[in-house]
């Protein structure tokens, strides 16, 4: 049709005018009239900027969607994203050589990095751990957990409280925290997972808030908003400080090397890296096992799965508990990395950040989540001036990703199975 190929400028202008009018009413009062006590200041330029941007954006979008490329784009939006991509049974990725390279870089890294870079990367790895855990819950099992940070808090406070009241250290708390978080996940998940999926989201949201409120208000037990100190980690009872407490031997004296304040962080980095690799391995194996397949099948069609005899509560619960225990581990690392814990590290914003990692990385994709965790935690460190707009950008990211690519930037692919010879299919 030749008529359709010409741009209808009038239509686009009308669209843009309409969008501008709405933007004026929506943004005008809140952006333009800034409350100051019982009075107000007017800020008309800011409104003009926003309305102008919206109008221009809408005009360009309108024009773009009238072109042929635009129409193909639109069609891609409307067909909902294709599901999991299945690879041939014996498929080997061409990017396999990257893995040893990354491992080598990870091994060499602590010897070259400055303390600041080391701490940034440790934080990135903690979020990788959190992202991997939440990815099991949200990405694989399709359960929206909005209070994920509660399990993270259980791990972190597990270390602080365990040291304060029971005298436990880093190594004994590490497995305990995972167990404790999994137990909390089971207690919370069991009643809720029986019901329609959306309820889980709001109950976990409430649970995350309950944990934070209790940590904040129970002054005599958790120290309230002031937080609690966390002991430095030890290796075989050897400490990383310059001087050990109560007659112990600090590790640098035993090894006969010079004292290095980085040593504690190098140690945390090493253990954290091992844990991340372990979790990565477990997760990859699990996705190929019946339980992992069951998670993804339940995510796609719960009714069909139940009709086939899957116990949907137990399957979902296993994913929920596994995710929770990963967060518990991450919490222990976070607490010993920071040296103290307080409730302000465990707000809803943290849950949203971890969710943003999973959304950006792709639901169920491992590589994507690792990359997204680094991008979303390291980038803000480097772009300090954007700190105020961080949450705004995360929100926009979530909305745009859901509209554009609900399954994440990196396509999920699973290796197919070939029937074994001699076995009837």
């Amino acid at each position, binding site marked *: 049709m030749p008529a359709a190929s010409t741009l209808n400028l009038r239509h686009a202008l009308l669209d843009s005018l309409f969008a501008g009018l709405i933007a004026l009413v929506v943004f005008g009062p809140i952006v333009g009239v800034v*409350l100051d006590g019982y009075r107000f200041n007017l800020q008309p330029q800011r409104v003009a900027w926003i309305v102008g941007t919206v109008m221009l954006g809408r005009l360009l979008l309108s024009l773009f969607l009238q072109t042929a490329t635009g129409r193909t784009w639109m069609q891609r939006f409307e067909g909902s*994203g294709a599901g999991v991509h299945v690879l041939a049974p014996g498929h080997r990725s061409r990017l396999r050589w990257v893995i040893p390279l990354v491992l080598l870089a990870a091994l060499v890294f602590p010897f070259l990095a400055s303390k600041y870079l080391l701490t940034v990367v440790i934080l990135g790895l903690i979020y990788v751990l959190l992202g991997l855990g939440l990815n099991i819950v949200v990405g694989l099992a399709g359960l929206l957990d909005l209070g994920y940070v509660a399990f993270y808090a259980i791990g972190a406070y597990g270390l602080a409280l365990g040291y304060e009241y029971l005298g436990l250290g880093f190594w004994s708390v590490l497995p305990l925290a995972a167990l404790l978080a999994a137990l909390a996940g089971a207690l919370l998940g069991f009643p809720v997972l029986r*019901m329609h999926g959306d309820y889980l989201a709001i109950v976990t949201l409430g649970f995350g*808030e309950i944990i934070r409120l*209790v940590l904040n208000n129970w002054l005599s037990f958790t120290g309230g908003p002031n937080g609690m100190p966390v002991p430095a980690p030890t290796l075989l009872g050897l400490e990383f400080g310059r001087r050990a407490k109560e007659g112990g031997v600090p590790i640098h004296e035993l090894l006969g090397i010079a004292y290095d304040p980085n040593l504690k962080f190098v140690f945390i980095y090493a253990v954290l890296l091992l844990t991340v690799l372990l979790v990565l391995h477990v997760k990859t194996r699990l996705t190929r096992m019946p339980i992992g397949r069951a998670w993804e099948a339940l995510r796609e069609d719960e009714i069909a799965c139940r009709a086939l005899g899957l116990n949907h509560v137990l399957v979902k619960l296993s994913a929920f508990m596994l995710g929770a225990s990963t967060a518990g581990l991450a919490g222990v690392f976070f607490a010993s990395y920071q040296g103290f814990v307080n409730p302000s590290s465990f707000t*809803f914003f943290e849950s949203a950040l971890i969710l943003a990692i999973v959304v950006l990385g792709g*639901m169920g994709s491992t590589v994507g989540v690792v990359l997204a965790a680094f991008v979303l935690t390291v980038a803000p460190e480097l772009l300090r001036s954007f700190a105020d707009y961080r949450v705004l950008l995360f*929100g926009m990211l979530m909305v745009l990703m859901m*509209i554009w690519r*609900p399954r994440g930037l990196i396509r999920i692919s699973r290796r197919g199975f070939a029937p074994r010879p001699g076995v009837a299919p």
Partner: protein
Amino acid sequence: MDGIFLQQLINGLTLGAVYGLIAIGYTMVYGIIGMINFAHGEVYMISAYLSAIGLALLSFFGLESFPLLIFGTLLFTVCVTGLYGWVIERIAYKPLRNSTRLAPLISAIGISLILQNYVQISQGARQQGVPTLLDGAFRVAIGEGFLQISYTKVFILVAAFAGMAALTWVIHRTRLGRMCRATQQDRKMAQILGIDTDRVISAVFVIGAAMAALAGVLITMNYGTFDFYAGFVIGIKAFTAAVLGGIGSLPGAMLGGLILGVAEAQFSGLVNTDYKDVFSFSLLVLILIFRPQGLLGRPQVAKV
């Protein structure tokens, strides 16, 4: 019955009426598209800001009398907040109608983060407030003490119930209401019968936002202060109210709101104020375990 109990009953009823108004937004959206609107708490927060801004603007232009002032503020807040509801549906829900089940939930969380941060950036993180509009109170002597019912609380109760009554009338007596009920029962069938269900869904978001706006004006009148984070806790509580009353049921939302408000007020009066939010959230978990269909709701049947 002692004075504290009665006083907290009054406080709880006013608070509960407002929870009920917000719960309507959750319950209507859930009824019609089967999804929780996570941005609804933030819509309430926006309306609190809008009511303060409207009040400041109207006073600046020299409006003095209470009825005119409150009417103007209400009109302004309800209209602008309704438009927010429309825009949210347009951006976060409409493009995702045929997407995975999780997608609209996540995009709504995104919208809620955007709204929080955008208000924080443009209005500042500090608490905002409005002056007291209605002074004075009824006092009823009980035993040795007396019961105090401020005019503001009376106004809130009256306005909340008037809002509810108006909504019930719209849903049961008008063409739009009939279309809403039809879409709620069976969206595909309604579409076949010539109802533009997309417009009905938009209308439901606008109605929900308008009710939240009414709640926003009333709560702001009662407490006088709010901040950009206010939508989060009230959102969860209103959702609790909607679940308690039976999600999808309009009278249930109001009943659930009243019960939750009274229970919370009694808890903070008799036990502990610090843990009143914990109490409400625990109540939500308990209801979901023991009576997920709520007081007035019907048990859900999963459809293929």
